[in-house]
Structure formats: C-alpha cells, structure tokens
C-alpha cells in the first residue's frame, strides 16, 4: 500500500533520530551526562532532546531527562506534564527525589520547576550536586536541556557535571556569528563538544 507524504516524512524523521542515537551511543567517549544546547532560542533544541530521550528508552537504556531551562521550560509542555515541582524546588525536597521525577513512557523526567531569579545559583548548590550524584548512579544516560548558550550563562554552572555537549543549529535560523560565539564559550569553559545537530534540514528527494 502506498504511504502518504506525511507518513514518509515521519519515517524519515524517526530514522534521523535513530541515526543520531547510534552516533551518540557508539561514540568513542563514554558520555553519560549530556547537555543539549543551542546558540539562541527557536532552534528546536527541546524537541530534539525530548525525541532523543524517547529513542534511548527504546534501546533499553535508563534515561533521566532534566529541564535546566528554568526561564523558558519546554519539556513539561512537550510531554504535557506538571511543572509544579522541579529542579528549582530541590532545596525543599530534602533528598526525596520521588516527588521530583515524573515517569512518561519509560523516561524519567525532571522539569525545571517554578521560575526563579537566578537558576545558576540552584545549579551550583549542594542539593543539585547531590541530585546529580544520585542520577549518575541510577541512570545510564542523563540528558540536560540547557538554555541557549549565548542568552544565559546557566550552562557554565552545570558544566562541572556534564561529560559532553551537543550543539543544535537550525537551518536558516542560526546565524554563523552566533555559532562562532557559542563555540568560543564552549572552548573557554573547557567543555567537551561531542558534536553538532543540524535541525530543519530539507528532505532529500
């Protein structure tokens, strides 16, 4: 039976995510904690990390997805889950992470929580450090959705926990100047750039 255009596109996108996952899983370095970022907003970063985590669970990996973009949280919207308790509430939870983690189709998700003035303070706190230690022991992969690298400096605060970064750039949206600047920030903070993801690519005929 002939598949319609939308179905073909869907298959192509699924294959693209599977290829991304394969490249990530079989990379030389063992990157357990991976941050996904972009130079600025509107580059499809959160959608990519959500889909990536979904594919990872299909490969029998235990995944924790943490939304570290407190100011513009998207993960709760994508998965349609509550954002009442999240990373910004870590202090008040006293190590009871069961209230923090929401399960959705095999993915453990931690939303960003209520908006706070300076999220970097949360990421630099002992509570966040303890939570990351706990996560590293209990999950195969931890994916962090971090704010755009040129808009906010939060990624610098979480950089000590992450093994590598994935930089997302969107076709016709991301400017070359921004990519250059983002690379400068990554290099100046000695962060490990695993690779880049090119989003918004046209379908090949």
């Amino acid at each position, binding site marked *: 039976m002939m598949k319609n255009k939308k179905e073909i596109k869907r298959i192509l996108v699924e294959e693209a995510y599977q290829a991304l996952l394969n490249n990530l899983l079989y990379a030389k370095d063992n990157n357990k904690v991976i941050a996904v970022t972009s130079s600025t907003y509107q580059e499809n970063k959160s959608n990519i990390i959500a889909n990536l985590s979904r594919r990872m669970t299909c490969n029998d990996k235990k995944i924790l997805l943490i939304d570290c973009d407190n100011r513009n949280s998207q993960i709760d919207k994508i998965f349609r889950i509550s954002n009442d308790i999240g990373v910004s509430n870590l202090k008040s939870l006293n190590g009871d992470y069961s209230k923090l983690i929401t399960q959705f189709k095999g993915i453990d998700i931690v939303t960003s929580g209520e908006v706070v003035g300076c999220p970097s303070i949360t990421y630099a706190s002992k509570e966040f450090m303890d939570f990351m230690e706990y996560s590293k022991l209990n999950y195969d992969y931890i994916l962090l959705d971090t704010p755009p690298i040129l808009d906010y400096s939060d990624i610098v605060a979480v950089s000590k926990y992450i093994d590598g970064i994935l930089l997302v750039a969107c076709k016709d949206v991301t400017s070359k100047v921004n990519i250059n600047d983002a690379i400068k920030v990554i290099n100046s903070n000695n962060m490990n750039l695993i690779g880049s993801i090119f989003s*918004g690519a046209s379908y090949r005929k």
Partner: protein
Amino acid sequence: MQYEDGVSIKEIFYMIIKNLRLIILILLVFVIGGLLYTCNTKTVYQSTARILVNTDTDGIITSEGVTLGLRLAETIKVWLSDEVVINEVVNELKQIDEKYEEYDINRIESNLSIDGSSTTLFVTVNYTDFEIESSSLICNLIVEKGIETWDDKLEIGANIETVNKSNFFVIASPASHAIEISISRELYMILFVLVGGIVGCTVSLIKELILNKVISEEDLEKLTKSNIIGVIPEGIDIL
C-alpha cells in the same frame, strides 16, 4: 532579562569593517563606471531669450490691456514651438552652414523649451545644444522667425486667434551667451563615489544580516570544527 531588538551602530560598524574588501571592490566598480560615463558625456549648453508682450501702446496701462497681453503671451508660447516656425528655423540653418544639415524639426523641438507663467507678460525661450554657438544662434532664430511668421491671424491647432499686430509691442531680447547646464565631471565623480560607497555598505550589511545563516551541514561542520552527529529534517515533531 530584556534584550534590545535590532542591530546597534557598533555592530553595523564592525560589519562594515569586516566587509571592507567587498565595499572597496564595489566602490572601484562605481569609480570606473563613473570615469567611463563622464568621459563619454558631452557638455550641454543653454541659451535664453525673453519676449515681452507689451499692450501699453499709449503709455496708459489698463486692466483690459494686461488681460489681452497675458492671452497673447500664452498664444505666443504655443506659436513659437509650432511646426511652421521650427521649419523656418531649419531652413535658415541649412543656409547658414553645412554642419546644420543634420538638424531637423524633431531635434530642435526636443531641445526647445518655452516657459512663462499665465500671470506674466514674459515668454522665455530656452534652447540647449552640445555646441555653444549653435545654442545661441538657434535660440535667436526661433524668436526671430516666430515674430516674422506671426500673422495678424494665428492659427494654432483648432483655435484661431485674431491679433492685430499694431496694438502690441513685442520686445525680444537677443539670446544670452550659452551657459553650461550639464553637471560638471567632478560632480559626477563625487556622486559615483558616494553612490558606490552607499551601495557597498548596503550590500555588505545585507550579506551580514540576511545571508549569514547556517544553511547546510557543511556550514555547521566548518564553523564548529566538530562532527555532525545528527541531521533532523524539518516539519514533524514526533515523540
């Protein structure tokens, strides 16, 4: 956090500095173009003659006289560019010198302009030419032939104006020495340099602001100096 929209002057300055080579290249193209244009541009000269239509035959100015004068001035304006007058001028020119053989009615008409508002008794005749002498000569001939061929009855198009010549004085001044009216070469060059600079800056800004997006995997690979580990097609947000 609040962000300022748009591009600051400092950023525009940096964009211009970054694209200085492109700007200089465009400027050079304009300078060369300007040089070629000015070298091929002929100087244009213009002569002017004035005709005063005076109705004051006995030294007493009457409103009726002025009204008649104004009407006559309007008629003369049309008459001077009439084919009858221009044809006379062409014939006369051919008798004066061989070099005027190529002058025909169309050429003279296209270089002739006759001005004068409806509230003045003056009619101004302007004639432009590439030669300084020809400009004055033809201007004078138009006025001379215009008055000479003017009958008491002027037929202009469908209208017939009956004018008794003896009731008017028509005072025509000789054509002035022709003056150069085309823009000087120096001015042309300054204009070309200015336009070249503006076009250069605009092109470089457009290049920076519009064409400075990542459009391919190769672009991204080159910029990040890292591997592209994923290419996600547009359109569908699956989960």
